[in-house]
């Protein structure tokens, strides 16, 4: 170039982000598991710094905190752990068909609360009237219906008026919470607390009081996998989610699919609420689901909408959550520490998706170099 000396100082960005969609799935999974490995190291280092113990000891505390003396045949801790995993998984599974349809159901919390409330009402009102098998059947049916109705309301508005489902489902959560509060006010006497009810509880198998819950969720996991991958309805969900234009083109009734799928999503949330009430708490309060309806959104995504991957992801995250809480406990820290660590791990896992879908390139080399 003739007047090379006049060239301005380059302000070309150092890094450039370029979209890519060609990373092979195997490599993508390597990136994800690599991230997970790094996060385990970070957890260890953090926990070491706080507890003052060695890396190995820290992980021992975590393991003991989650599984207890499992090798000596004491399985109580294991069942508790699996119960935690199962409940979060149930909610994540419930959200997955809606998410595959790109219907952002943020109302798992409310839908589960309504299911739980239905179970609670049956236990209190019908516990003395019906025989045990009939009572359980009635509990199941009403919980499923209650959850489904709570999911159907936003779906109908979405299908016919194209309302924003994210806001709608979120608001439905608050209504559900208020209904629970009102129910506690009526039934709780002055204290707004309902004492555990003994009627309509799920049976304990051996030492495992969560046997029913864990089994039900395991079955749902397998069914959901088959439903999404091998059923005609699951196929319709994918088509509507990927492109409503294509769905219309091949004659899928989009409204019908939206409504049907949200009924399923809500119903499964209702089932979770029932499992929490009849299979665990035997009582109800507004904190029944404890925010897991929102954690489940993340888990469904982290599991790539695949029920089995979801199960693995949730098992890992729950392990970290309980384990780190134990470490914090021994170091006399409160439970927020565990939440912080879980937050960091989730952020890292979400962040690694960026490197799967984009590649970062450094400033390209100048073709002409100044003299």
């Amino acid at each position, binding site marked *: 170039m*003739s*007047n090379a000396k*006049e*060239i*301005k100082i*380059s*302000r*070309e*960005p150092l890094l*450039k982000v*370029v*979209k*890519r*969609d*060609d990373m092979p799935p195997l490599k993508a999974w390597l990136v994800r598991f690599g991230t997970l490995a790094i996060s385990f190291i970070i957890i260890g280092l953090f926990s070491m710094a706080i507890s003052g113990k060695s890396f190995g000891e820290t992980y021992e505390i975590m393991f003991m905190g989650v599984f207890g003396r499992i090798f000596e045949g004491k399985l109580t801790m294991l069942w508790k752990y699996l119960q935690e995993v199962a409940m979060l998984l149930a909610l994540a599974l419930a959200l997955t068909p809606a998410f595959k349809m790109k219907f952002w159901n943020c109302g798992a919390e409310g839908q589960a609360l309504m299911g739980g409330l239905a179970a609670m009402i049956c236990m209190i009102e019908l516990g003395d009237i019906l025989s045990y098998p009939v009572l359980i059947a009635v509990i199941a049916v009403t919980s499923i219906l209650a959850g489904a109705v709570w999911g159907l309301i936003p779906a109908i508005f979405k299908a016919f008026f194209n309302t924003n489902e994210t806001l709608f489902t979120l608001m439905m959560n608050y209504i559900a919470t208020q209904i629970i509060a009102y129910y506690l006010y009526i039934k709780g006497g002055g204290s707004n607390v309902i004492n555990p009810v003994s009627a309509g509880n799920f049976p304990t198998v051996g030492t495992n009081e969560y046997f029913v819950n864990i089994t039900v969720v395991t079955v749902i996991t397998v069914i959901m996998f088959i439903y999404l991958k*091998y*059923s*005609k*309805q699951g*196929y319709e969900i*994918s*088509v509507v989610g*990927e*492109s409503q*234009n*294509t769905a*219309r*083109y*091949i*004659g899928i*009734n989009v409204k019908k699919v939206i409504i049907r799928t949200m009924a399923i999503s809500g119903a499964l949330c209702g089932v979770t609420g029932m499992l929490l009430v009849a299979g665990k708490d035997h009582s109800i309060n507004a904190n029944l689901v404890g925010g897991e309806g929102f954690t489940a959104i993340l888990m469904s995504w982290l599991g790539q909408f695949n029920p089995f991957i979801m199960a693995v992801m949730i098992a890992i995250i729950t392990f970290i959550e309980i384990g780190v809480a134990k470490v914090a406990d021994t170091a006399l820290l409160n439970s927020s520490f565990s939440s912080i660590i879980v937050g960091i791990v989730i952020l890292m896992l979400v962040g690694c998706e960026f490197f799967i879908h984009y590649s970062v390139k450094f400033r*390209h080399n100048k*073709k*002409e170099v100044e003299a």
Partner: protein
Amino acid sequence: MSTQPAIELKNITKRFGAKVIANKNVNLTAYRGEILSILGENGSGKTTLMNMISGIYFPDEGQIFIDGNEAVITSPKDAFSYRIGMIHQHFKLVEVFSAAENIVLGIDEGKYNLKNSTAEIKKISEQYGFDLDVNKKIYSMSVSEKQTVEIIKVLYRGADILILDEPTAVLTPQETQKLFAILRRMRDDGKCIIIITHKLHEVLSLSDRVSVLRKGEYVGTVNTAETSENELTEMMVGKKISLNIQRDEPKNAEDRLVVNKLTCVDRAGTTVLDDVSFTAKSGEILGIAGIAGSGQRELLEAIAGLQHLSSGEIYYFDPKTGEKENLKDKTPMQIRNMGVRLSFVPEDRLGMGLVGNMDIVDNMMLRSYRKGHSAFLERKKPKDLAMKIIHDLEVVTPSASTPVRRLSGGNVQKVLVGREIAASPTVLMVAYPVRGLDINSSYTIYNLLNEQKEKGVAIVFVGEDLDVLVELCDRIMVIGSGKINGIVDGRTATKEEIGLLMTKSKQEGAEDANE
């Protein structure tokens, strides 16, 4: 015209993802005091190139020089500091603000003083002959007024390199003329004007030089005074070649689809189809020619049951029973359940005809997955069909379980056309089936259509390449602004004749703008 280029592009390359190359080694020079046209077909990379000058994209390779110095433009703000202003096809204005407020919006000139600014804006308006009420709110403005605001906005910011992206697409002929007068005045004032267009007559009447892009590559630059419409067309679409597409005489042609006085109004209340009547016959290819967006898409969608009709009838004659059925206001499902074998290859292949994230097998099922009473999918037959199509049509793909979005355009189209033909249709509608395809894939598609014609299928072919239409089709229907401007015999019709019919309704206005 000065000798120092105002703006010079050297070896500019821009990719989107790994596959799409929007611009490849483009070189371009524009001087002050001239109007340069960037000419090219849809998708030739005109707008992408200009977006790199105006800071919306950043080139992957190559350099931009402004007044001889290398410039690095990473944002529209950078572009303004080089005195470059772009007027986009879609306006970027705040609806509830007045013209003046929109013009000064975002400029940091110390104190906000609308009065001074207004005076300045008026000065600019008078200098170039704009006609603008600065206090008028944007929402009450016509399209042409909004465009005026956009132009003054960049002038107010001191731009002396102006880029206009298809500025006449939204204007009436009179407004176009007015705009051209203003642009000429700006040129005489020493500004560098770059205008993106694909309308030849505008190029010839307005610009000093023309740079032509084809498929993202720079073809060349010519002086307008020394060129002709023919030369430009050739540069734009490549050498005129005889295609030698096979065309047999239709056999036993009988009425298959009769469209009668079809009228269609879209949501905005615009009439997109106006009293359309025609007949598609079995064993014949009926071509539909027209400028993009003249109602071709709506017409096919109306027949396929995807558009609501305001009035008119669509009759289908069953080849077996000879019965006459009205398809009006039927959903695609109902049409299929009536036993009408209607296949449709839509223009938007991955957004409508196929699902990009699904693999070839699952895309095969789109039409047929409902078959049978089982609640579960049957993937055996779709898989066989996928393998057959991959084999017969020579689809290049790693496997049948590759997501179709990963395939090249030609292979995507083979998958789609293959599926639609596999349904053994009696009516086959295809929209721009060879758009973006290489020569070999295009011929594969022509042969497939001819095979179907041989089988007695009534084919409706919406195309843009007139060379193809006159060599492939038995009859050609020309559509313009939703109206049928004429139906000609494909064997005797010339490109000129069709071109004339295409612009029939707009002919007068176009000539006005030429002067």
